[in-house]
C-alpha cells in the first residue's frame, strides 16, 4: 500500500481543521493515520484515512468531537508518467471543483428546496501539496460496490437521480455565471493531448487482436485495426459540446468505483449514493456520462437490453430540474430529442464497452498498475492482452460489437 504522505502531521491536520471550523484555538486530542487503498483499486490518487478527536475552543465544550477524514493526494509517479499526465491537470481540476463549483451547485439545488446530498463535502483544499481533505464517507456508512459484480436497476436509479440533478444544476450555474464552466475542456479526449492513447488505442488493438482469432468476430477485428489511427480524433469530436444542446459539467468518469452507496442495515437495500472523484470533469454532453456509466458498471441484462428505460428515467429528472431552476439558455430537450443526442454520442458507448470496461471488471492483478495501462511497452501489451482473455469480457464483446457495427460505429468515416 502507498504510505501516508510525510507532511500529513498532527500540526498539518490541526491547521486544516482550524481553517474549516474557523477556530484558531481548536485542539486535537487524538489522531490516527492509515493508508486507505490497495493496488488496482484506483489510479487517481493516494488515499489516507485520518481519524481525529478534537475540541473546539468555544463555547467551553467538555465533549470531544470525532471526525473521520479521507486525505486525497497526488500519486508520486515516475517522471515519465507525470509528464504524460500533466496536460490533464487532474489534481488542480478536482480541487477547483470541490472548492468553487460543488458548493454553488448545492446552493442552487437548495433554492428549489432540494436538500439531497450529491457529493461529499471538502473540509480543506491545499493547492501547494495538491491535497484535498474530505469527510470520510465510510464511517458514515458509505461503501463502494463491487466493480466486478456491477450494479442492478435499484443502484442505477439512485445514481441517475443524483447525476441528473448534478448535470442540471451545472447547466444553470454556467448560464448564470455566463459560461464559467465552459473552460473545462480537458476530459479523457481533449485537444491538448493524446496521452491516453496508450491505454485507449492500446486497448482497442488488444481487443482487435483477440477478435481476429475468433472466426465470427474476425471481420470486426479488421475494422478495429483500421479504426485505430483515427480513434483519438473521433473521440475528440465526440467530446465537443454541440451548440444549441443543453451541455453540462459532465462528471467524466462515472463508474462503480467513483460512487459510494449507503445501505439500510435491516433490509440490505441501497438507500443513498454519493458521487466522488471529479478529476476528469469537462463541459459537454450529459450523454457521455451516461454511456460511460452504463457500459462499465451495469449488470447484464440491464446493460444489454434495458437502457431505454434508464435514459427515460434520467431524462425526466434532468428536464424537471432544469425547469424548476428556470433554465433558459437553450431549449430543454424533449425525450425524443434527448434520445437523438444519446445516439449522436454513442461512439463513447462503444469505447466504454470495448476499451474501458475490460479494465474495470478485471480480476487479474498481474501487472495491474497505471504504468502498464498507459504504456505500449511489452508489459503494457501483455497486460492489455490479458484483459481480453476474461470470459465475461469476451461474452460482452460477442453480444455488443455487432450492435455497434450495425450503428456504423466501427467505421473510419463515422464522425461523431
Amino acid at each position: 500500500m502507498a504510505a501516508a504522505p510525510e507532511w500529513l502531521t498532527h500540526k498539518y491536520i490541526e491547521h486544516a481543521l482550524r481553517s474549516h471550523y474557523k477556530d484558531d484555538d481548536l485542539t486535537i486530542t487524538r489522531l490516527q493515520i492509515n493508508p486507505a487503498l490497495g493496488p488496482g483499486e484506483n489510479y487517481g490518487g493516494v488515499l489516507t484515512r485520518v481519524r481525529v478527536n478534537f475540541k473546539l475552543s468555544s463555547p467551553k465544550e467538555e465533549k470531544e468531537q470525532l471526525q473521520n477524514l479521507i486525505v486525497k493526494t497526488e500519486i508520486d509517479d515516475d517522471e515519465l508518467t507525470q509528464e504524460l499526465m500533466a496536460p490533464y491537470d487532474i489534481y488542480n481540476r478536482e480541487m477547483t471543483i470541490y472548492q468553487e463549483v460543488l458548493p454553488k451547485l448545492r446552493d442552487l439545488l437548495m433554492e428549489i428546496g432540494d436538500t439531497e446530498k450529491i457529493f461529499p463535502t471538502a473540509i480543506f483544499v491545499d493547492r501547494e501539496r495538491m491535497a484535498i481533505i474530505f469527510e470520510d464517507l465510510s464511517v458514515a456508512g458509505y461503501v463502494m460496490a463491487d466493480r466486478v459484480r456491477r450494479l442492478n436497476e435499484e443502484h442505477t436509479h439512485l445514481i441517475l437521480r443524483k447525476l441528473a440533478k448534478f448535470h442540471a444544476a451545472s447547466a444553470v450555474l454556467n448560464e448564470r455565471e455566463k459560461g464559467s464552466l465552459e473552460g473545462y475542456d480537458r476530459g479523457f479526449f481533449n485537444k491538448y493531448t493524446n496521452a491516453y492513447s496508450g491505454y485507449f488505442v492500446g486497448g482497442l488493438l488488444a481487443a482487435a487482436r483477440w477478435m481476429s482469432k475468433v472466426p465470427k468476430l474476425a471481420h470486426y477485428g479488421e475494422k478495429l485495426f483500421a479504426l485505430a489511427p483515427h480513434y483519438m480524433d473521433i473521440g475528440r469530436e465526440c467530446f465537443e459540446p454541440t451548440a444549441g444542446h443543453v451541455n453540462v459539467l459532465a462528471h467524466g468518469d462515472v463508474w462503480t468505483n467513483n460512487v459510494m452507496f449507503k445501505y439500510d442495515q435491516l433490509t440490505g437495500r441501497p438507500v443513498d449514493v454519493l458521487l466522488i472523484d471529479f478529476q476528469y470533469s469537462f463541459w459537454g454532453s450529459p450523454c457521455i456520462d451516461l454511456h460511460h456509466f452504463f457500459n462499465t458498471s451495469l449488470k447484464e441484462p440491464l446493460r444489454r437490453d434495458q437502457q431505454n428505460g434508464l435514459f427515460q428515467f434520467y431524462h425526466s429528472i434532468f428536464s424537471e430540474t432544469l425547469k424548476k431552476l428556470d433554465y433558459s439558455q437553450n431549449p430543454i430537450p424533449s425525450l425524443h430529442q434527448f434520445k437523438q443526442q444519446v445516439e449522436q454520442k454513442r461512439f463513447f458507448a462503444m469505447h466504454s464497452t470495448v476499451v474501458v470496461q475490460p479494465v474495470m471488471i478485471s480480476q487479474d492483478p498481474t501487472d495491474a498498475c497505471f504504468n502498464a495501462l498507459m504504456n505500449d511497452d511489452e508489459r503494457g501489451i501483455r497486460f492489455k492482452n490479458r484483459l481480453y482473455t476474461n470470459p465475461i469480457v469476451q461474452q460482452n464483446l460477442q453480444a455488443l460489437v455487432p450492435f455497434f457495427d450495425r450503428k456504423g460505429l466501427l467505421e473510419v468515416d463515422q464522425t461523431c
Partner: protein
Amino acid sequence: MSVSDLIGALDAIPKLTTVPSSSASAQESVFLDAPEWLTEAYLQDALRKYYNDRRLKITWVKVNPALGKGENYGGVLTRVKAQFTRSDGSAQLGHYIVKSTFEGNDFAQKTMEPYDIFNREMEIYEQVLPKLKALLREIGDTEQIFAETMAVDIENSSLIFEDLNARGFTMPDRLKGLDMKITRLVLRKLAKMHATSAVMNERENHALEGYDRGFFNRYTDNYAPAFVGMLQAATRRVAQWPGYEKYAAKMEALVPIYMELGKRIFDISPGHINVLAHGDLWTNNVLVNYDKETGEPLDAIIIDFQYTVWGSPALDLFYFLNTSLEFDLHKSHQEELIAYYFGVFSETLKKLQYQTAVPSLHQFHQQMLEKKFYAAHTSISVLPIQRNVETDNADFNALMETNQRALNFKDACYRNPISERVLRELLPDFEAEGLLDADQ
C-alpha cells in the same frame, strides 16, 4: 384469400357464349367488370402503339378484376390476357395489368383529388422510372426494379403494364409478414431506386423536388379522418388492456398534433440526404418471384407509385419495416436492415459519382432517428389496416369516413391478433423513446 386464389376462382367461372365470330380461334373475348372504355378496340390500339405494329390484330381478350376487397384502396386494377397476331404472322399471348381510377365514387374522388395520385403515377412511370433504369444501366446494373410500362393514357387516367403475374411474380400474403430474405431483396431494390433518384435529381437541377404531396403534406389534410381515426380506434383498444392506461392516455393527447407530427416527417430536413420515396411501400406493392422447386424468393419488383414524394429515405424505410415484416424482424431487426439498405444505397451513389456529400452510416441512422415518429405512426395506424381480415367493409370510404360503418371498420382492424401483438409489444418501446409524447 391470396391473389392467385382469386384469379383461380375467376378462371373457374363458365365463359359467356356468343355467336361464333369469324375469328379462327375457338376462344371468345370476355369482359368482366371492366371500365367501360376498356374495349377490344382500345387494347388493340394500345398494343399496336407499344409494338409499333399497325397490323397487329387481337384474336381474343379476357378481362377481369385483379384484386378483391381490402387488397387495394388506390384504384381499380384489371387483368388483361390477350391473344394477338403480329404483322409477321406470329401469334403471341400477352398478359397486362390495367390500372385506372375509381369510377362513380364521388366521395373517393373528392377526397383523393388534392393528392393527385393518378396524374403523379402516370408521370412517374412515363418520365421518371425509365431514367432511373437508364442510370442503373450506366453502371452495368441490369436489375429490374419496376414493372415495364406498356401505355400511359392521360385522358382515361390509366396505365397498362406487363402483367408480372404471368412471369411468375405473385403478391406475398399480406396477412403474413415478409421474412429476412424477401425483406433484404426489397431493400436492395429500394436502395437502388433511391440512389438513382438522388443522382437524377442532382443531374437534372432538382427536377424531382416538386413531388411534395405524400400522405402527409402541407396542402391538404383530407386523409386525416383515416390516420387520426385509426389512432383513435387504436386508443380505444389499448385503453381496454390492463397496464396500458398510460399509453392510451398519451395516444389520446397526440390527437390534436398528430397531423402536424406527420407533416414534419415529410418536411425536408436541412443537411439530410433526400430521395424520391415510393411513399406507400408495403407487402401489396411488392411482387415476388419464387423458385418453383425450392420456394426460395428469387426476385422482387416494386409497383404502385401513386404516393411518390421527394423526401427522407425514412419515409419508405419506416413505412416498409413497420408494416410488412415478420414480427421478430419488425420488433428487433430494423436497425440491422437499415444498415443493410444503406450499404447498397451508398455504394450505388458512389458508383454513379453522386456529387453531394453522402452521410456515414452512423450519421444516416441519426437522420432516420429524427424521423422515427413515422415508425410509431405506421405501426399504430397503418399496419392494422393492412393486416385486417374482416374484409366485408374494407374499402376507401370505410377508411376515410367517420360514420358508424367507418368506426366499425376501424375497430375491426384492431381486433386482429397481429395488430394487437404489435401494439402490446411496441408501444412500450415507442413510449420509452418519447415518440408518444405530444411535445416530442
